């Protein structure tokens, strides 16, 4: 029984680490801040979620588990707000850049359908 729990922890945490690795690769390799933010949110939400899921098998129910889940919810909430703020700053920076004409004509033809 203990072995199964340990195995579950190892598998879940390893999967979470894979997602974190994907997030770091995205941070280093993707071209602009908005796409990097997209990669990081995968690491933050699902990666941390898998790590916490794996750790749930190691703590005492119910309060330890509730604390871990509360931790994940807090990170998700504050991470999404931080992502929102970063993205809107980036969006403001992009707004001041000159408009790209081909995208505008594509949007107009879409809305006419």
């Amino acid at each position, binding site marked *: 029984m203990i072995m199964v729990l340990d195995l579950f922890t190892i598998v879940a945490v390893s999967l979470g680490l894979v997602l974190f690795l994907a997030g770091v690769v995205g941070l280093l390799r993707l071209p602009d801040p908005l796409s990097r933010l997209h990669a990081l949110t995968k690491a933050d939400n699902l990666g941390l979620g898998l790590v916490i899921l794996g750790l749930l098998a190691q703590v005492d129910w119910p309060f330890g588990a509730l604390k871990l889940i509360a931790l994940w919810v807090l990170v998700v909430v504050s991470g*999404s707000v931080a992502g929102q*703020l970063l993205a809107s700053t980036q969006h403001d920076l992009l707004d001041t850049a000159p408009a790209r004409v081909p995208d505008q004509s594509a949007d107009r033809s879409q809305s006419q359908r």
Partner: protein
Amino acid sequence: MNAAIDLGLFADLVIAVSVAGLALWLVLTRERFRAVVGFMVYGLFVALAWMRLGAPDVALTEAAIGGGLVGLLLLGASARVPPEPAATTRRWPLHLTAALLSAVVAAGLAAAVLALPEPAPSLAGTVADALPATKVDNPVTAVLMAFRAVDTLFETVVLVLALIAFWSLVPDRAWRERPAWLPSPRPAPALVLLARLLPPLGVLVAVHLFWIGTSQPGGKFQAGALLAALWALTMIAGLTRPPAADRRLPRLLAVIGPAVFFAIGLAGIWLAGDFLAYPTGLEKPLILVIEAVLMISVAVALGLILAGLPPAAAALSTQDHQGGAGAPREPRS
């Protein structure tokens, strides 16, 4: 069992290399903003190192104060201080001498670490023997509040003195203005939402941290730092306004912690025979009362320091608006 020790050592190696590498990068990197953000990451890594060293109370304090609050201060400073001028000459002799000096100091310290006496002298046994008398189970809290209570008293006084010194930097004309470091001009709705959601939950967590500090890692410094950070969040989002330096309530709250601590210490002379001695039977209630009041004082003092200073330019404009040096100041709203 061996595998567990090897894995632990591997984790320690990774953390040690990360901390050292990050510190070197912090010192050498060119961009100031990167250094400030990197410093916050560095604080979290050092908190990890503290966990590995078996010091969870210190890890909590380092993550909250050393990483978070100092990082917030440095972020504000990096936005308000003009960028450093480009280095005109590469001062190679200075860099080389500094590197040599630092290497000598580091080598000396490393030699001292390698030559530490074996078996290690320790006060853990003495603390464990005296711990039941204090009725608290967390040894660090017992050391902070009972065995070395004078240190804690002086430290909270130092925090108040630092607040006074910080406020002494406010120019005379701006004494009644509100500090301007934290409020953002157009707070994003997401930030306002976070500042509405997080503080109630955060206050719960802070009270929990303070309450279990007597038996588990935690305590008033960590709880106070968390409360100060929540207050700073509400000030950034514009939900509360930072108090000016002449308001009485923040001053009272910042001072009440050391004052109550000192009063209980004085009362200990009559009731228990020595300064800061607790009468038998009243240890835990007194420690809890002192910790509660100190938590509020630490939170208020840290929050007031984070709130910053009033801007000098605004003070100049209100002075001109009132028609000169002799006009009476308008009453504060």
